[in-house]
C-alpha cells in the first residue's frame, strides 16, 4: 500500500526554538516535496528533493532547510522558528510511473507561539 507518513502530526513550539518535521515514504519514489498550506493561499512549495542529497529550493524556501540522507526519508528543518511559520506542512512524493501523481501525507500542524 502506497503511503506517506508524517511525524509529528501536531506540534507547538516557542518562537526561536528549532523544529524538525519528518516524512517517510515506502514507495521508493525519487522526488519528494515539502509544501505549506495556509488559508487563502493554497499550497506553497518550500523545497523539492530529486533524490538523496539532491535538493532544490521551491517558491518559499526562506527560513527552512531540508535533509535527505535516505531515499525514504525527507526532513524539513526550521532553525529558530517564527510565528509566521505557523501553518500546516505537507510532504508529498511523486510517482513517475503513474503520470507524476503526487502522494501526500496527512500533514503536520505547527503552531509557533
Amino acid at each position, binding site marked *: 500500500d502506497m503511503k*506517506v507518513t508524517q511525524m509529528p502530526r501536531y506540534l507547538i513550539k516557542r518562537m526561536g526554538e528549532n523544529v524538525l518535521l519528518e516524512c517517510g515514504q515506502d514507495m521508493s519514489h525519487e*522526488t519528494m*516535496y515539502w*509544501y505549506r498550506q495556509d488559508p*487563502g*493561499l*493554497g*499550497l506553497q*512549495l518550500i523545497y*523539492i528533493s*530529486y533524490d538523496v542529497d539532491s535538493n532544490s529550493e*521551491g*517558491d518559499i524556501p526562506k527560513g527552512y532547510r531540508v535533509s535527505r540522507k535516505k531515499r525514504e526519508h525527507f526532513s524539513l528543518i526550521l532553525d529558530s522558528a517564527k510565528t509566521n511559520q505557523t501553518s500546516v506542512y*505537507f510532504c*508529498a512524493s*511523486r510517482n*513517475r510511473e503513474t*503520470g*507524476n*501523481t*503526487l502522494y*501526500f*501525507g*496527512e*500533514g503536520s500542524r505547527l503552531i509557533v507561539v
Partner: protein
Amino acid sequence: AQSVTQPDARVTVSEGASLQLRCKYSYFGTPYLFWYVQYPRQGLQLLLKYYPGDPVVQGVNGFEAEFSKSNSSFHLRKASVHWSDWAVYFCAVTSNSGTYQRFGTGTKLQVVP
C-alpha cells in the same frame, strides 16, 4: 512560470445537483493538469489527471474534467453531488517532467440538503 487560478473560494451546492468547479491555468507549452481533493484533517488525494489527448478525463467517484486550450481552463464537473463530496478541491499544473507542481488556492465545496 506556470500558475493556477481557482476563482471561487467557496461553492455551495444542493445534494443531487450538478457541480462545476473552475480552474484556469497559465503555462507556456503543453500543460499536465490535475485535480486533487482534501477531506478534513487529511492530505490531498488525486481525483483525476490530464495528459495531452482526449480533452475530457474521467476520475473517481463520478468526477470528470474538461481541458480547453483556447480558454486555458480545466474545469471539474459532477452530474449529481453527494454529501460525502464536501471537501476542498485543488487544481494543479505541471510540466511534462512533472518536477514543479503548482497548486491553486483551492475551492471549498459545501453540500446542503
